[in-house]
């Protein structure tokens, strides 16, 4: 049983209780994915599985046999960041930086959800083929990612740089 993490094959744990989050943090040394609650309430542990955002603390690692996981480390590095990572720096989209990897991974997944036409609570026309991006769409869809430092404005600004269509 193996899982691909940032393109590298890894063994799944023998203990079925190990969450995907703990596999990443404690066994694979990928501590960029954060633990803020371990019970699905904060979003700090968000990673992308086959392109979709999930809460890795609510996922048992063994359920992800054969799947492909992208974590913050797979998105970019300090030396060679992804444009969204650079935008977070430019817009001061964090303070302590603890929620940040989750915010960034979540934003990546969120953008694809909108492009696929998945409506949200604030979408005015849920039957529309194309959902227009707006700051409210971003805010609503990012509300599962808590930030106690209050970097919300900077986070939305940073995400908006990837979405020319969201500029209001």
């Amino acid at each position, binding site marked *: 049983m193996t899982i691909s993490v940032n393109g590298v094959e890894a063994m799944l744990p023998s203990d079925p209780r190990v969450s995907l989050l703990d596999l990443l943090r404690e066994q694979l040394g990928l501590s960029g994915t954060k633990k803020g609650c371990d019970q699905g309430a904060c979003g700090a542990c968000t990673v992308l599985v086959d392109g979709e955002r999930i809460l890795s603390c609510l996922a048992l690692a063994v359920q992800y046999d054969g799947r492909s996981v992208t974590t913050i480390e797979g998105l970019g*590095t300090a030396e060679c960041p992804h444009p969204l990572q650079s935008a977070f720096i430019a817009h001061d989209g*964090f303070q*302590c930086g*603890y929620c940040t*990897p989750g915010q960034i991974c979540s934003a990546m997944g969120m953008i694809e959800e909108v492009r696929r036409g998945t409506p949200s609570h604030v979408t005015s026309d849920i039957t529309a083929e194309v959902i227009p991006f707006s700051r409210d769409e971003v805010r609503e869809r990012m*509300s599962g990612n808590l930030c106690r430092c209050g*970097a919300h404005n900077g986070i939305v600004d940073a995400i908006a740089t990837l979405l020319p269509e969201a500029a209001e």
Partner: protein
Amino acid sequence: MSIIEDTKQLVQGAVMAGMSKAIALAPDRWIPGGTPDPLISHRHGHIGRPTTRIDGPLKVAGAAPFAAEFPMEGMVYAALANSTIAKGRIVELDTRTAEEAPGVIAVMTHRNAPRLSPPPAFMSSPKAAGGDSLPVMQDASIHWNGEPVAVVIAQTQEQANHARSLVRVTYEAEPAITSLGAAKARGSRTAMFMGQPLHDEVGDADAALAASAVNVDASYSTPRHNHNAIELHGVTVAWQDGVLRIHDASQLVAHEAWTLAQMFGIDEDKVVVTSPFVGGGFGGKCLWQHQVLAAAASRMVGRPVRLVLSREDVYRLVGGRSNTEQRVALGADPDGRIKAIIHEGVTPKTAFNAMPEPFILPTRSAYASETIKLDVQAVELDMLSNTFMRAPGESVGTFALESALDELAHKLDMDPIELRIRNEPEKDPTNGLPFSSRHIVEAWRAGAERFGWSARKPASGTVRDGEWLVGMGCATATYPYYRMPGGAARITLTREGHATVDIAAHEMGMGTATTHTMVAAERLGLPLEAVTFNYGDSTLPGVVLAGGSQQTASIGASVIAAHRALVKELLKLAGNDSPLAGLKPDEVGGTDCGLCKLDDPALYESYASILGRAQRVSVCVEASPSAPMEIMHWSMHSHGAMFCEVRVHAVTGEVRVSRFLGSFDCGRILNPKTAGSQFRGGIIMGLGLALMEETRFDERSGRIVNPSLSEYHVPVHMDVPEIDVIWTDIPDPHAPMGARGIGEIGITGTAAAVANAVFNATGKRVRDLPITLDKLM
């Protein structure tokens, strides 16, 4: 604390009071800050330029190492079992099944834990850090519901977590005081805070209130709160060659190292606490039982231990803000001049800590009034010790005071901003000291203009947009300038022109590392890249608390002292062949990778040249600033004018904050980019305080019943509008760099601005936080 402790504090307080009288009367030039920091007049350097965080690339890449992420050879994992009663004794503690569970190495309880001294409680001595003074797992007694009773140490976290569920505990409960009503019935005492009673009287406020033409008199209440930093409290600890090494998330590394040394009975230098990154603090990342238990467990099993609290554990082990019941009464004459201010009430603490929520603090320096009466009564409960949380006192105190101001304005039929400006004091109304720098009126005027305050309809409930009622409100924010004793810094300057500043300070997201790199570079006349700022390590100089918004002042004053020592040393090395020969340290400053005469920059020599001629590779100095006497000589406070627009749903009572502006007067702003984030972050926590945050404490059992982020609500993206912040940027001539702290002021005034806007929208006055929709239906 006990009556004996109170008396001790009172005696210390009396000595302090005598001293502060002398300091108040001393000439300005004897006082730190009496001669303004020369950096205040630098206008086009690093200071004031929006500067991107130097640790940004690491943080966005997930490469900044937090406490629970330091790998250690042979490390094992710990999990805690907590008590389920508030007071009593453990009569049976069955750990056998847990010990036999797979992977378990040991189960630590009061029976086998290493013997430890109790922690010196915070404020009981200069380096004390204990959240309370209770012994940690040393006997069978239980002091609060949730106190740790066992630590399971196992090969993996999963094994430890499972085995923890197998620990069986039987208790003998004793009667516990867990309700505020019961505690009040037993009597209260005037609360002591930092050695002084929380009680002030100027004139006869009761008589003046009764004689006032117009008055308001109301009760306000605020619930318990928890810091809820997103990073869980976690430590990775090891004993290496007799040295206890702790990777922690800490806002007081030096205090923590000293306190742990006291507890374990070892030398202070045998404890090393490092904390390069802290995933949010807000007053919550101090010393609680988890660090002690992890260190004890590590000693017991002879292996490095990682202990990460669960979110529930954080609520059980790390104190939060206590609830308050406050009364504010204001008397005024018909044209709005305040004649009487009464602000009093009660708040619970424990017998083991010295932290009553000091909600009268903001009222001490707020408004000119001939009579003032302020009083905090403390009662004691059997609960986890409460602690400081962002703007202790001011956060919840301004809710009551600034709501009452709004009520008075309404009764007087006066604009609430005009009412505040009319009552601007000329000197501090309670201690009579001159203000160091107070430009709140400018902040009000600039804020009102930018927010469009003139469009507000004074009559409440008159603006409607479909199903939404719209209103505007305002309030004053305030937080004092503090500087605590204990600062020290080391500067090492090399011949190549690189400087390293070392100080045991902290970065919890405030931008400390970035801002102080800027300040040091400016002071030394170096480019940013030529300065390294080291912090977050108890072996570095200084005992600096990241709290009370005082860290910037403390670092600033320490670096000023070290810089002065450096300049002195460099002038000595420069000798008689230098263009600087004969100059005194006060006459020169750093510029262009060297020193020059301040009023004649042509007299200059580069660091490379000075050190080269002296045949030195580098020079290293360390110094401490003088005691913070400036706070006893001037009344030093930051202020803000807070403006809020809310929309309240006419049917459901749902409140949405649609606009918010904070207009601040906090002295000079060093890094506008990170400062803006600090202000916004404070305001957003203030929105939580106003609308949703509440730690629910079951008054029957003394147990917190919502210990999770799904049941304790903090503002999420959808709750946060774009928050506008502006500032006067007027330097405080008596503060290092001209800057007063900015980390806490944002949470103050915010809740009142929201409540006042809700009143303007609906005509309903909510005096009990949080303002949930049931209170508006």
